[in-house]
């Protein structure tokens, strides 16, 4: 399922992060960073709400708009019942859609928003996504202060809130087309190897995107996957070659870009719904506005993991959504 858009623009973006992202290689590209993981709040969960609220404030300020100008707010995050998004939207008080496809949520929000703008149902749309290292650790893994060692394939959930303002005004970056992913299951049960879980989903979505639009992989200056991590990146490359005979040379992975793996304790790299958009809405967005990169295929990948299902020895399904971004000529 691939759509083409004629008149949808990613007009403005904002990024808010925690301290690890700030100290990473892209630290200077983020709009705001907290040194304290509580972000001035009392709980990890509310810190994540704060990240979304801050990103919304920032993007509205850049856009010279107020909350009341927003037609629709779409948001997704990792927490149960997507609470961070729900609690943030409770303060925005605009029509709201909450979405979940784990770490692929960011592109899902963009696709829904872009489709509704293209079909003239709404004039603009605010798409937010968040993740918080500690609230995710608490929910999916172990208590934050517990130091039990993790395998080297484990990824480190990024702390961040991102907002994108979608509209019809010709500025920022153009949203050119998008592909909705299919849920894949390749039988991987290892919760500490999400790169292996998600790589086939990314490959599948990239392949179908190229097939639907009859494009060659080299049409894009860059294929940017969400959060496969350093090992998942290699798996994707091999998988694309063996399964589809596509040579993936213009590829990078947001998980490997956001942290310095040699100096930071992040094992295989970053992850979380905020990982892909933190890189895209800051670094990539800037480079595209300056026309240094002109065509990017963002493929956000999500491991649809549930602790009960994995304890019951079920494999982890995964999904990837793709969106094609083009610099404005």
């Amino acid at each position, binding site marked *: 399922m691939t759509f083409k858009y004629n008149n949808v623009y990613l007009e403005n973006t904002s990024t808010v992060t925690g301290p690890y992202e700030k100290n990473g290689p892209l630290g200077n590209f983020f709009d705001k960073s907290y040194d304290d993981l509580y972000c001035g709040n009392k709980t990890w969960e509310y810190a994540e709400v704060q990240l979304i609220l801050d990103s919304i404030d920032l993007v509205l300020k850049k856009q010279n708009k107020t909350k009341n100008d927003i037609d629709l707010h779409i948001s997704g995050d990792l927490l149960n019942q997507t609470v961070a998004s729900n609690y943030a939207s409770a303060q925005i008080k605009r029509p709201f859609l909450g979405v979940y496809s784990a770490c692929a949520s960011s592109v899902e929000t963009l696709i829904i928003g872009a489709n509704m703008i293209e079909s003239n149902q709404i004039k603009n749309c605010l798409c937010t996504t968040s993740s918080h290292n500690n609230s995710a650790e608490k929910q999916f893994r172990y*208590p*934050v202060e517990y*130091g039990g060692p993790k395998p*080297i394939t484990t990824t480190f959930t990024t702390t961040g809130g991102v907002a994108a303002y979608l509209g019809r005004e010709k500025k920022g970056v153009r949203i050119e087309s998008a592909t909705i992913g299919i849920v894949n299951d*390749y039988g991987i049960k290892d919760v500490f190897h999400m790169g*292996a879980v998600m790589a086939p989903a990314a490959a599948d979505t990239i392949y179908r995107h190229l097939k639907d639009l009859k494009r060659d992989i080299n049409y894009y200056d860059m294929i940017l996957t969400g959060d496969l991590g350093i090992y998942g990146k290699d798996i994707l490359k091999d998988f694309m070659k*063996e399964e589809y005979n596509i040579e993936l040379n213009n590829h990078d992975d947001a998980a490997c870009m956001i942290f310095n793996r040699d100096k930071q304790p992040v094992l295989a790299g970053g992850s979380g719904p905020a990982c892909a958009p933190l890189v895209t809405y800051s670094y990539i967005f800037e480079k595209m506005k300056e026309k240094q990169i002109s065509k990017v295929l963002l493929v956000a990948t999500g491991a649809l993991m549930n602790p009960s299902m994995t304890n019951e020895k079920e494999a982890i399904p995964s999904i990837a959504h793709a969106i094609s971004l083009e610099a404005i000529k």
Partner: protein
Amino acid sequence: MDKKDYQKLVDKNTPKEKRLKNGIVAFFIGGFMGIIGQGLIDLYMNWFDISSKQASVFMIVTLIFVGCFLTCLGFFDKWVNFARCGLIVPITGFAHAMMSAALEYKKEGMVTGIGANMFKLAGSVIIFGVVSAYTFGLIRLLILGGSV
């Protein structure tokens, strides 16, 4: 590509853990913990003039306190991450697991938070500790002919 072939592709691209290095680190730090424990027992025996059985209880309480205290100070997780089983297998690991869970759920209330979640990680240790103590106790009594 079927699931089996994919698993092979994943294995090819996944590096092995450094088991030998981890094992050596755990061996020496675990051994060092043993020395500290024995030192504390000797110390308590001399100080309080008590039997080694009583002194070992004092030693365990001390190590639990230190494990909990360092966890609360916020850096014990980094030590555990480095020492691995060297700090997890001794009683410090148990204290660390209990305390980190208690800290994590403090904000969800005394009963619904700390009470309900403190044993989240360490609960299995207690359950299977009791089950195996019972099993081996029975074996000792019935097969090896130990006294009650």
